[in-house]
């Protein structure tokens, strides 16, 4: 009995100790509590021209957005201009800056790296890491984006490419530290339970594009809580993982199928016309769905590290959400 009492007291003490620094996940595993550092609301800019409309600028101001993750360019496979029979990783879709960065907003220059380009970087990760960082910083400097503290790499790495990506981020991370800057990376849900993550100072968990878009039976490929939960339930150990911010979707689209086969994404489903044999699956996460996922994520993975991030800065999409709804998404525990 004394022995049982000892075990019980010990457990309570441990739980009390944990409760001061950790949440308890639903599966009983330990997860990290994240420190709030430079907390602010943040939003992605994922267009090839940076020229926010008046409404978008007002949105930034109204919601006290202090950080803009701006996609600067993609790294994709490109035929070498000198030796076209060589395909090389190179920047494409470079963002053009037609407007200044709103005052007081920190920019996180972001690069999207395709898997094909990543594969071509094998063996040359160090060189490409520096080229990517240098170009991001050159763009920041040229387009007067202000002081930069962080650079973000976005890549949908897989089991077969994680080593290449790790080598890339490892070198970028070291290189950025010599410049007194940090590296963050995006993490998709399916990457949550990978044995390890590529090296970075922190990550952004992307809580959108969770479903298989081309599958006709998918209910909502942008965000479906039934897709999200299995990943979250599997997370048990976050101790040695990097701190995370969370990115939530505030966009929608239509997915057109023809004769049961995926056909195309329709940006404005309201005005889409359908031909014979065509169906349109309109996808837009409701704010309730987003908030449900948000609570589950925070419950399972801990509070956000710096920011809740909205994807993405587009008035046509954002106007589907009320200010209050946006505020709820941004809210930090």
């Amino acid at each position, binding site marked *: 009995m004394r022995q049982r009492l000892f075990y019980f007291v010990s457990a309570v003490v441990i739980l009390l100790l944990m409760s001061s620094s950790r949440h308890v996940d639903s599966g009983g595993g330990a997860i990290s509590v994240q420190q709030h550092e430079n907390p602010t609301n943040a939003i992605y800019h994922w267009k090839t021209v940076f020229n926010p409309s008046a409404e978008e600028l007002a949105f930034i101001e109204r919601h006290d957005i202090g950080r803009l993750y701006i996609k600067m360019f993609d790294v994709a496979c*490109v*035929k*070498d*201009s*000198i030796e*076209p*029979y060589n395909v*090389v990783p*190179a*920047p*494409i879709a*470079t963002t*053009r800056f037609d407007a200044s960065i709103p005052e007081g907003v920190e920019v996180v220059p972001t690069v999207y790296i395709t898997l094909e380009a990543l594969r071509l970087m094998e063996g040359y990760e160090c060189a490409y890491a520096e*080229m990517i960082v*240098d*170009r991001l910083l*050159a*763009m920041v*400097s*040229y387009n*007067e984006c202000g002081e930069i503290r962080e650079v973000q790499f976005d890549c949908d790495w897989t089991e077969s490419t994680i080593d290449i990506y790790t080598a890339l981020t490892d070198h970028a991370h070291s290189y950025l530290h010599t410049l007194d800057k940090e590296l963050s990376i995006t993490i998709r849900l399916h990457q949550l339970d990978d044995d390890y993550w590529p090296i970075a100072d922190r990550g952004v968990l992307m809580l959108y594009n969770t479903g298989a878009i081309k599958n006709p039976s998918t209910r909502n490929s942008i965000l479906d809580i039934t897709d999200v939960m299995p990943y979250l339930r599997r997370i048990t150990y976050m101790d040695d993982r990097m701190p995370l911010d969370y990115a939530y979707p505030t966009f929608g689209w239509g997915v057109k199928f023809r004769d049961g086969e995926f056909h195309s994404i329709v940006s404005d489903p309201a005005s889409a016309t359908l031909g014979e044999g065509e169906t349109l699956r309109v996808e837009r996460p409701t704010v309730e769905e987003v908030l449900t996922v948000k609570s589950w994520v925070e419950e399972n993975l801990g509070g956000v590290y710096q920011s809740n991030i909205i994807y993405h800065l587009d008035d046509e999409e954002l106007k589907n959400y009320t200010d209050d709804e946006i505020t709820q998404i941004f809210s930090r525990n």
Partner: protein
Amino acid sequence: MRLLRFLAVISLLLLPEIGRACYYPWYYCSSPALYRVEQIDESAVESKKMANLRDWQQMTSLDIPIDDIERVVYSMTLEEYEALCAVEHYTGSNMFARWIKENDPAIMEFLLLAKRNEFVRFSYNSLWYYPTMKVGGPMTLEEIIDVSLNTKDERLRSRYMLQAMRAMYTLCRYDECIELWEREFESRPMEDTMRRHAYLYIAGALYHTGEVDKAIDMYAEAGDINSILYIAQLEGLDISKVELLERLYRNNPNNPTILERVVNIVYEEEGPIFFRENGYENHVLSNNSRELLDMSLRLASEGRDVAIWYYTAAYIYYLEGRLYDADRTLMLAEHSHKSPFMSESIEVLRIIIDAHTAKLDKRYEQRLLKQLTWLEEKNYAYIDGVDMNYTSSVSFYVFPTGLYYWKSSMQYLINEILVPRYQEAGNGVRALQLANYSSYFLLRPNTSIHESYYDSDNYEWIDMGYDTLNDYRHFIYGFNALDYSTFFFSVVDTSDIDDVLAYVEGANTPNGELERLLNRGSYLDRDFLYDIAGTHCLRNMRYAEAEHYLNEVDYYYSNYGLNVSQKYDPFEFERVRKTSGDFRLDFAREMASLERAMDNATNSNVRARYMIRYAIGLKNSFTRCWELTHYYDGYVPHTYDTHSWWSDAHTKATIGKANAMVQEALSIIDDRELAAEMHYMFGNFRTVALDYPDTYYGDIVRTQCDHLNDYDGHCLDKHWW
């Protein structure tokens, strides 16, 4: 400082060719030796660049020189141009710069954008380029595109659109390139300068977007065969070079690159034949040449440029060694409508084929006279038009360097066809006449030549300036690198002695018009020829005749006009230094005298002494003192097919004869003292010790050498046996 007159008559400018000429003794030239088609002068078709410059001139002022426009538009760097933009008042002398600075800020602005575009595009070759600082204008390709597409300047619109297209292309935005082309350029007239500039970008863009066939068609229309071949290689398309040529030709027969390519194919085919790697007979054509032959026959039979294509086909047949087909096909070219230029090319090929097939009789030689006369005129006409600054080297006239069509035609005809044929037919004299003519017909006594010396201590060539050919021959101080390394020399040096003597004897008494023509172009210097004749006699042990010919050679020439000189006494068993101006004549006299003495000697011991001296002289004249019988002992610059006489049968037989004479001489001596002396001289110490112990030399061997076996055979320092 030790100066070697190693190669005294070459132009320094031509040194690289000289080196290779040693290995490829015949045709070394940068264009086909015998194939000549009338190519369209590319410079006659106004280039896109020139058209652009003229457009700028039209747009500004016709008083502005094109060179000034070129300087600003093409040559000026971005930095220089930015400086031009920055100054308030232009004070330089460039009229275009002044005009646009004072009158046309729109052009100033456009050129700044264009130069930035080129600068960024160049930097963009890394694909990762991005500027870091703003400089008051567009500095990224995206910005350049944007500014260009949004121009309001209708006058410069097409130029701005071209800049946009260039930037788009560099950014791999090929679909936009194509859209821009369709919107802005496609409907413009074909000759529009900006359309012409945009054309190849579009071909490239089409290729990159997967429209390979369209891209090839556009490249074909532009005559850009390189791009087509490149694409074909990338795409793994089985398109041959000739197939493309035909496609281009059918598209635009006036495309200047077509015949240029044809010429290149022929040139590639000629090389192995004329360098004698494989020889002319049974030559297997390359695939390109085979296809070119088929194409030529096909186009000619369709009535397209009949003379050119039948001529081309005939020449390829010739290269393949199919003389009959070449002859028949050339006949078709001869009977077609042809330009005076092509008539000449056809005529040369006819002469070549004729030289192969004709019976070498009087009728042929009458034709040959006309043919050589005509070729000579063509050569002289060409030479007179050549800038002498580049032809002052004698190499240009005599050696393969500086080869051009008319010279190569003449020399190929004679050197490669007629000389071997006449030799084979037993007419060695005619072969020598032709060879001499072929080597010297372009040289004139006052021809200026360039002398260079090789300083072997400092490993450098020393330019000694210019001389006339005449001065060169008379003040060369012992190394004539010219006359003893020509094609004629190689022929005369290796000809049968009777042919050589007959040629030399009759050299100045020509018989008939052909010989007169050949003599006019030949080098018939008496010293030169008689020395060759005398040397041949020495080589063939015809010493009395040698004496006759060498006696006619001027002492000065023997001393200073040759390319060799005496080093050792030929009659010494040991190596004893000796120099004499008349060394060949002296040797001939002594050998002739010894022959007479041997014949007349009644005493066997005396006869043996003569025989041994004769044998020593004979052997030395092919070994240590080879200069007596030859003009070179190995490598000679420019020499055609240097003959390895050291190991030939004649040399071996002659040395064998000398050895036999020594053996015979030793066997007939009955004076024991003399016999011991002779055996001692030849190193037969064992014989001296055992057979002649009581003689003077027997005593030397016995008293100085304890172990007779050590001296069996030859002594180390007496290389005779």
